[in-house]
């Protein structure tokens, strides 16, 4: 069953087109990602689905309903984790969860009975009566996710869930989200971190400048738009571009970045051996598997994080 159906969605702000005619759908229990750089139109799309923004044209159905016609009913199905934390800083952790449940109209006793479970999920049980102000960035994010779960949403929407967090906090958060995924919660995630998309998404859509560049599972996309491996070589910033011509013929494809050259191939080690045999000696070299970053580079000619 498709929980979200989007057809020819367009969103304009004045004469700027943020979303330019995109189509996609999300199934129940699926973890769907919108991957793209800042300004790709991800957040605009999320806000339209979240029934807090009006589209310029196109069709959107969330659980069979139009968010513009049935905003409050649709929002009752959603758990929203916005890009910027908007926890209630005047309240404690427990009070934040409690009052959010009350916003949905849940009875006091129902919400109170849920608090410990949610706090435990967010690994914040020991912070139950602490003011939100005193929490770290990662804790705030986890509390925001717990808050979004208070209404037992059918769809959890996460806008850049780990942006700005340190690596350890990110891994804890991914672990929490993975548990939700296992429990069958439908996740809609935007991110500009390809590792996050690879970790969390069953299927994703690569967006750039308001349009969909590609869609599929992370492995499908890598298979389709990149090679199995990548050889990264550096010759120093002055020489990198001089080497492009010489190396072009060795690889299936070559991308030139300011600090390094990327050579796409099925076997990085073999390629490196061939280059060295041709008496070309890079300052450093690295063989790695292709990632979504490479997919994005191929599709747009730019890196995700600029």
């Amino acid at each position: 069953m498709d929980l979200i159906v989007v057809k020819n969605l367009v969103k304009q702000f004045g004469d700027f087109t943020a979303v330019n005619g995109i189509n996609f759908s999300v199934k129940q229990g699926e973890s769907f990602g919108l991957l793209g750089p800042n300004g790709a139109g991800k957040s605009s799309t999320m806000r339209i689905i979240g029934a807090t923004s009006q589209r310029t044209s196109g069709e959107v159905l969330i659980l069979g309903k139009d968010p513009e016609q049935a905003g409050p009913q649709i929002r009752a199905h959603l758990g929203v984790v916005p890009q910027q934390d908007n926890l209630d800083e005047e309240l404690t952790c427990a009070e934040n969860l409690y009052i959010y449940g009350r916003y949905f109209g849940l009875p006091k006793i129902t919400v109170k009975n849920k608090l410990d479970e949610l706090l435990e999920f967010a690994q914040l049980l020991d912070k139950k009566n602490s003011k939100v102000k005193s929490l770290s960035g990662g804790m705030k994010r986890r509390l925001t996710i717990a808050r979004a779960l208070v209404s037992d949403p059918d769809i959890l929407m996460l806008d850049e869930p780990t942006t700005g967090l340190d690596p350890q906090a990110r891994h804890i958060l991914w672990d929490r989200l993975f548990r939700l995924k296992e429990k069958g919660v439908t996740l809609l995630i935007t991110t500009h971190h390809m590792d996050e998309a690879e970790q969390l998404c069953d299927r994703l859509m690569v967006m750039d400048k308001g349009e969909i560049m590609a869609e599929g599972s992370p492995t499908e996309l890598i298979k389709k738009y990149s090679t199995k491996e990548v050889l990264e070589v550096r010759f120093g910033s002055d020489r990198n571009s001089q080497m492009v011509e010489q190396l072009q013929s060795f690889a299936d494809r070559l991308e030139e970045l300011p600090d390094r050259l990327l050579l796409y191939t099925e076997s990085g080690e073999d390629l490196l051996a061939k280059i060295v045999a041709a008496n070309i000696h890079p300052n450093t070299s690295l063989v790695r598997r292709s990632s979504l970053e490479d997919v994005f580079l191929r599709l747009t000619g730019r890196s995700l994080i600029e």
Partner: protein
Amino acid sequence: MLISAAVSIAERQANRMGAKHYAGRSHVILERSLVALKSSNWFPVVSGFLEPLLYLFSFGYGVGTLIGDIQVSNGQVVSYAMFIAPGLLATSAMNGAIYDSTWNVYFKLHEGKIYHGMLATSLGPLDVALGEILTALIRGFAYAVGFMAVATPMGLIPSWWGVLAIPAAVLIAFGFASIGMAITSYFKSYQQMGLINISLLPIFLFSGSFYPLSVFPDWAQIIIKTLPLWHAIELIRNLSLGIINFSLLGHIAYFLVMIVVGLFFTTRRLNALFMR
């Protein structure tokens, strides 16, 4: 798929008129304010209550002994303290309402992003507007009750009609809170917010709390009579002195219009801000 409680609650409201803007749950916004109040700083709350009492003591009894008695509109002669007490009660209802509906609202709107969170749930903008105004109104009510509790035993509220000064104070607080939140929702910077404080001071000083309007030339009286605090003071002063006539209805109507206009623009503005 299992239907969650949140969804069935929202579905029950779905066919009501204006369901997109109002879920019928403004009381949860008030509940939030009460939860926040529990652990917040009580100093501003208490100072808002004390302020009119300080004015009452210093002007009513200090300046009052120099001034002597004052003749009011129906020819009645009252002590100066008795003259200014209703004016201070009206002002205190105004201040209580303005405190919550302007700076507090501004902070939640721009700094805390509290309304963003609220409006991502099944609440509508009118729930938020009404709930915040309700909070402000309760503060106005509490100040009015507190003031009456001090002023009545002092013999400053001579008429039994004075009991109605409390609901009148609630009406006044509602009007000021409603307009205060509407104006705040359009303001984008602290400088603009400062305008509210700057304009409240002359309104407080010239609306007839401390002396009858007849001291001013006609043109100035006409200007003052358009201001909300003048209507508030007249309403409460007439009630507490037992001067009952049709002009009271005019003052009440003034505040009813303020309430409706304020709610209309607040809801419209919140919609524009959060449903772009």
